[in-house]
């Protein structure tokens, strides 16, 4: 059953747009049965229908932004010939509506944010900048491990000015989390990835997980993460349709839907920033 916001947004579309939306939804649902895809369209559709926080700067329940998002989706879907073009159309719609989740008030957040990254090339760049060119090349050549290299990033060797041109993530907005009373398996890469519901990509080589820590005030544009921020990542789950309230702190930001029985982790997006915002050397959590 679609959430209220989705229903309102769909109802606000013109009649021919509603027909196109139905076609778009059917297409998404069919994608789950296609071979060769690393995602399931029916789960993307479930998420889309549950999205209640894509409100832009509107008030709670105002469906204008969501209507525009759906309109953008159906326009990107109509008039193209191949599934690849349709998939690109949805991705483009998501990019256009990145960072349009309901704003999160600063005082609902702690003073420190955490971001967990699997981006090995950025970790290597950071090593090259802060340590030496040889350390980076030795890690590339597998003569030493990334864990060994990170072990040398003590507070005394850390100079955030050296990583000024590296970024927390790849897009305009990045996902982040923070410490909370229920805790998290922060010292185990696989368990932490499961708690964050990071997509379990089948890989022959192991993934890495690196923890970035930075002051909340060093970044801006705190928002609820939405389906538009997540794109084709089906593991993302939109926040429940509950108006954020100071009396119910759990409604004031998003939550991950973990795998493996781990506790959900708070989740938000904010504007991407340079790694100069880090309050110390990143921590190598491990491989999994």
């Amino acid at each position, binding site marked *: 059953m679609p959430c209220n916001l989705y229903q309102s947004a769909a109802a606000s579309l013109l009649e021919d747009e509603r027909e196109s939306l139905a076609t778009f939804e059917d*297409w998404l649902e*069919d994608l789950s049965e296609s*071979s*060769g*895809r*690393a*995602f399931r369209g029916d789960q993307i559709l479930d998420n889309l229908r549950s999205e209640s926080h894509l409100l832009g700067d509107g008030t709670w329940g105002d469906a204008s932004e969501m209507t525009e998002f759906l309109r953008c989706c159906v326009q990107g879907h109509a008039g193209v*010939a*191949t*599934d*690849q073009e349709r*998939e*690109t159309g949805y*991705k483009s719609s998501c990019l256009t509506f990145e960072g349009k989740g309901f704003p999160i008030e600063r005082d609902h957040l702690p003073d420190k944010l955490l*971001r*967990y*990254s*699997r*981006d*090995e*090339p*950025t970790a290597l760049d950071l090593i*090259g900048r802060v*340590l*030496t*060119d*040889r*350390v*980076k*090349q*030795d890690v*590339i*050549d597998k*003569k*030493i491990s990334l864990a060994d290299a990170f072990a040398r990033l003590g507070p005394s060797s850390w100079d955030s000015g050296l990583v000024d*041109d590296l970024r*927390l*993530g*790849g*897009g305009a907005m*990045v*996902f982040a989390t923070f410490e909370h009373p229920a805790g998290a398996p922060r010292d185990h890469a696989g368990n932490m*990835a499961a708690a*964050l*519901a*990071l*997509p379990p*990509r*089948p*890989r*022959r*080589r192991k993934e890495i*997980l690196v923890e970035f820590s930075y002051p909340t005030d060093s970044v801006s544009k705190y928002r609820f993460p939405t389906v538009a*921020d*997540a*794109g*084709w*990542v089906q*593991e*993302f789950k939109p926040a429940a349709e509950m108006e954020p309230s100071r009396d119910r702190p759990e409604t004031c930001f998003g939550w991950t839907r973990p795998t493996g029985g781990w506790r959900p982790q708070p989740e938000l997006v904010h504007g991407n920033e340079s790694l100069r915002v880090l309050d110390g050397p990143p921590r190598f959590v491990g491989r999994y």
Partner: protein
Amino acid sequence: MNEETFRPCLREDGTVDPDSLKPAGQPWVTTWLKGRFSGDDPYFPLDKRGGEAPSSLIVEILEDAGTAHRSTGLIGEGILDLLDEARQRAPEIPPYLKPALQVCQRASLPGTSTWFTEELQDLAAAPESVEERWGTQLVKEILHGAIRQSPGLGRAASYASWRMILNVPRYATLAWMGLAQSFAASLNYMEDWWKACPVTQRQAEIDQFVFTGLRTEGREQVRALLSPRSRSWPAALKSAVDAALKNNGIPEVFGSQGKGKLNAHQSAILGAARRREIVLLEQQQEQAA
């Protein structure tokens, strides 16, 4: 609804099957790589939440396939097309360039060797104009790629270029690694590298060199390989190597650290000489740069 001509296949375990790329054809592979490296892959969507690097999946496919596989050739040609296109667009830096270089740093792609050799030649001849084209950080990324794709083996087309780049202070360490990839071979270029490397970076690079050497060669072999250099190397280089050994709990080879205590007069003379040497070298490096 499925008017597509091609879609790569997954194996039962969910990994990408390199064989499935074989019928794709060069244009499809190049377009796919360009899109993925630019952040858009409709087949294997990038995970923004965990910051998935676009290059990682491609490196994995190449490691899985091996150098002789047809798909490796297709990917190599696709990356070469992107590198050529980026060169034409310079000084604009297209988003796909850095991921393309990251792949070249980690997997052998013989088809790209010529591109890296050309960059090395340009860098050896006129470092400033190459830096104008790419910027210093990207030049370093290119050199990391060249270490794998166009190493300076004795008879390689890139050898002479690497030798010249060894004299450019900011790239001296990367050139040293481009010329020699084993501990033993590295010793042949160490004195030239020492002269060129910025004074402030020397000890850290030597520390890493010795640390890795101890890991890959073992303590006795490292000491045995270093010993014959006793006569030819300058005192400051030997002292730096001894300090690196000492940091790793290994006895000195050259005895330059704790060999007898100098009196105050001797220490003052030695200290002044070293300071003078550092100033002169820095001046030379500034002029060379």
